[in-house]
């Protein structure tokens, strides 16, 4: 919480990015989540990704819904405007914000309760519209803030902390995102920051609706044997299909993994994502193949992570709306108000 002030002093030799900011400039207030919460690792990955990308913090707008995950925007990018909106409705607020100013970067942070239950409608429609954003779901399979009820992403047969067994089918956010037309879809694991940071960076560079499902264990309510979203379970079943290097005009943001076969995916702004492939046959530009692969692996009990789909030439909502190149919120009277003479002509047509 913000009354827990962080010390402003930092080591004078902290590395600076091209804009002269240190990593500290990308941090927020001290987290009030439980110690060991996966969400805090995601916040740290967000801090690192924006630092690496040389994006000034105030050029980012961070929006969230309600829940543990939706609290996290307070804990990163302290110089960004933030908006903690209504449960399950962050996508519509983000859509409006994006329409008002196309020049900012929009980061939507949500959870599985926020996006797969109450907000599943808005989740789907924001992807359909191709809003240019990064949409992260911090997915732990439970409602944390209300103390451990199953969410809609909990696997069928998985066990709650007090022993109840989930009898409902799970919603797979990644498959849903692919079906709804998200043009960048990835899955990460909060326990694997090296994989996650380049995924976030690539999503920021992507033009259009970028979705990242991050499996993020809840240490308080969903990290026990019988859970399928515990650290142990995810580590055991994590099947990474690839690792990313994100090449911005400067040096690559690299995943620290051994070499494999390599595939380059061009990004809209001229940057490149270099994939080091673990599954040589997996091509993240082929959506249908990706969906088939995901279904097969899921049936085999694996949790597929990595970049799962990227449309190399995607469009966004502003393209569809054919809006002017400048932000709509920068238009002034002369741009917007037709004036008295035009109104007189209009009146004449009504007689």
């Amino acid at each position, binding site marked *: 919480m913000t009354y827990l002030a962080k010390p402003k002093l930092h080591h004078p030799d902290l590395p600076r990015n091209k804009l002269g900011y240190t990593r500290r400039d990308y941090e927020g207030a001290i987290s009030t989540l439980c110690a060991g919460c996966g969400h805090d690792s995601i916040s740290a990955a967000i801090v690192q990704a924006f630092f690496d990308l040389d994006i000034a913090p105030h050029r980012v707008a961070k929006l969230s819904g309600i829940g543990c995950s939706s609290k996290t925007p307070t804990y990163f990018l302290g110089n960004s405007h933030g908006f903690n909106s209504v449960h399950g409705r962050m996508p519509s607020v983000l859509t409006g914000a994006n329409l008002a100013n196309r020049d900012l970067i929009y980061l939507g942070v949500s959870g599985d309760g926020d996006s797969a239950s109450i907000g599943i409608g808005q989740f789907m429609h924001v992807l359909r519209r191709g809003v240019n954003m990064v949409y992260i779901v911090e997915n732990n399979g439970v409602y944390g803030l209300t103390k451990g009820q199953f969410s809609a992403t909990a696997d069928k047969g998985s066990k709650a902390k007090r022993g109840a067994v989930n009898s409902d089918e799970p919603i797979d956010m990644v498959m849903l995102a692919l079906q709804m037309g998200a043009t960048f879809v990835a899955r990460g694991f909060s326990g694997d920051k090296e994989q996650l940071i380049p995924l976030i960076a690539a999503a920021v560079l992507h033009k259009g609706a970028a979705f990242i499902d991050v499996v993020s264990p809840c240490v308080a309510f969903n990290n026990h044997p019988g859970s399928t979203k515990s650290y142990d379970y995810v580590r055991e079943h994590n099947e990474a299909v690839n690792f990313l290097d994100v090449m911005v005009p400067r040096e690559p943001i690299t995943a620290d993994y051994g070499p494999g076969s390599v595939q380059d995916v061009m990004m809209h702004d001229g940057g490149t994502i270099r994939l080091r492939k673990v599954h040589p046959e997996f091509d993240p530009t082929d959506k249908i193949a990706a969906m088939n692969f995901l279904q097969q692996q899921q049936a085999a009990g694996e949790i597929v992570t990595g970049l799962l789909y990227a449309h190399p030439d995607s469009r966004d909502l502003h393209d569809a709306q054919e809006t002017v190149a400048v932000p709509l919120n920068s238009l002034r009277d002369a741009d917007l*108000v037709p004036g008295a003479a035009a109104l007189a002509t209009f009146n004449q047509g009504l007689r």
Partner: protein
Amino acid sequence: MNAKAAAVRVNDFVVKFANVNGSGSASANGLFARAILRMGVPVSARNIFPSNIQGLPTWYEVRVSEAGWRGRRGGVDLVVAMNPQTWDKDVAELDTGGVLFYDSTRPIPPSKLRDDVTIIGMPLTAICNAEYSDPRQRQLFKNIIYLGALAALVDLDTAEIEKLFAEQYKGKEALLESNRKALSLGRDYALANFDCPLPIRVRRANAVGDRVFIDGNSASALGCIYGGATVCAWYPITPSSSLAEAFQKHCRKFRVDKATGQNKYAIVQAEDELASIGIVIGAAWNGARAFTATSGPGISLMQEFIGLAYFAEIPAVLFDIQRGSPSTGMPTRTQQADLLLCAYASHGDTKHVLLFPQDPTECFTMAADALDLADRLQTPIFVLSDLDIGMQDWLTEPLAWDDRRRLDRGKVMTREELEAGKEFGRYLDVDGDGIPFRTYPGTHPTKGSFFTRGTTKDRYARYTEEGPAYVDNMQRLLRKFETAKDLVPAPVIEKAAQPTRTGVIWFGSTGAAMAETLTALAADGIHLDRMRLRAFPFADAVAEFIAAHDKVFVVEQNRDAQLRMMLVNECGIDPDKLIAVLHYDGTPITARFIIGEIAEKAAVFNVKPMRKVAS
């Protein structure tokens, strides 16, 4: 034709067209009304339509009134009975001495007719079948043929209809010619077979002036253009959909960059009303002017977001085009029953600014005002129109704009001010008006950013659950609401011709019937001082007006006397003082109804008619 002796009545009668929905009659009926306007005679016209696309009954009612009365009158002088389904009701509704015009191709048994009205049968179907072979043409031209016959019957100048054809079918000569021909066919038949014109008739006058004929939704949408709105998010719902659609149309005309062809606007047809209001709030938070258009059920769905916008202080403009409620209610009928829903929308302690346009002209001005007020007050602003204003064409004062007017963006702290070290507290009241400064996202690299949330916070937007900080903030919101009193459109107060201790209050579309009501009551010796409310919160003048009278009628179109309830609560008025006059059957309130109610209640409450004192 069985002629009955009837007094000649010029430029003062009601015509009702009874049609089947989807039969193409709307265009012909509209031409009838507009041709009368072109003759300089005021009309008010209303579609009375079902929740249906094809097959159910629909009516179009035209009141011709040289005096300029815009409300529904009640009663019908000429019915054009084209729908067998509603025959009995349509015939029954005719005033004694009225005229029944019908398609006599199939004989109607005498028991289905009335002997106290003039009956004019014209074999419309037979004429069409003889003239046209294509079934669609038979249907469509039947409408134009009856229009031609009516023109002869009420002495309408067909040259005016032909001019309207020429404007409508510019460049489509074949259509123009075939319509002209159908019109002549009808007119010639009527002239040859009936005693034309009827005692009720139109005579050229000069009573329209520079007024325009437009519906409220179209005018509201244009007001949004002039008010600088750049983002519109909506979900289709009768009777509001035509507002968003009109905005789209106006945008194509006024908001496309001539050089690039790019749009200076964005319109999203959202997945539901929750998303609509979310988009509006997101856009306004980020410094664009944004609005949504909906009706009562949509406002119900938006409640949670409205509370957020109130508490987090985000501008938003909501048009509520009210219809018959609750639930799906009467979706194609009019009411003024969303006052309480909007005034106190959302959970917890909330109060919202409401604007009450009385006609399309005010829809235009109040739309632009609402966008200014939303930015100035940083809060949701509701424009409470209704189906009667929104979807009907009204003869109304021309839309006007002062080129010196500038968009009022309210208290927005700039990058320069932040850079210069000006203190920024998002919820800090620096000058006592209750309105804090805000910053747009992205303004400054290190200053002026804040976290927007629906949870409690202190003056610097820092999360806190401390009671005193919460109370401090809620009290400031009350101060802001107090400030709003002087910013919203003031009530319009007028004295009666004679001194009186009785008053009357109304708002919105009820005004259409009030001028006529007051004139008629005054003629009967009942004089009422009057106040038309244009906004909530109520200005101090509202309580003062009530205090200056012994009894005040409150005329509104809902069951529960919602405005009266608000006056009692907000102004601390003795309930006995306010006499409710309520109309809520879904039809627009009429002067006949109000006159009857007030005359009856005035007698009970001992309001003595005051005859003019002999001098």
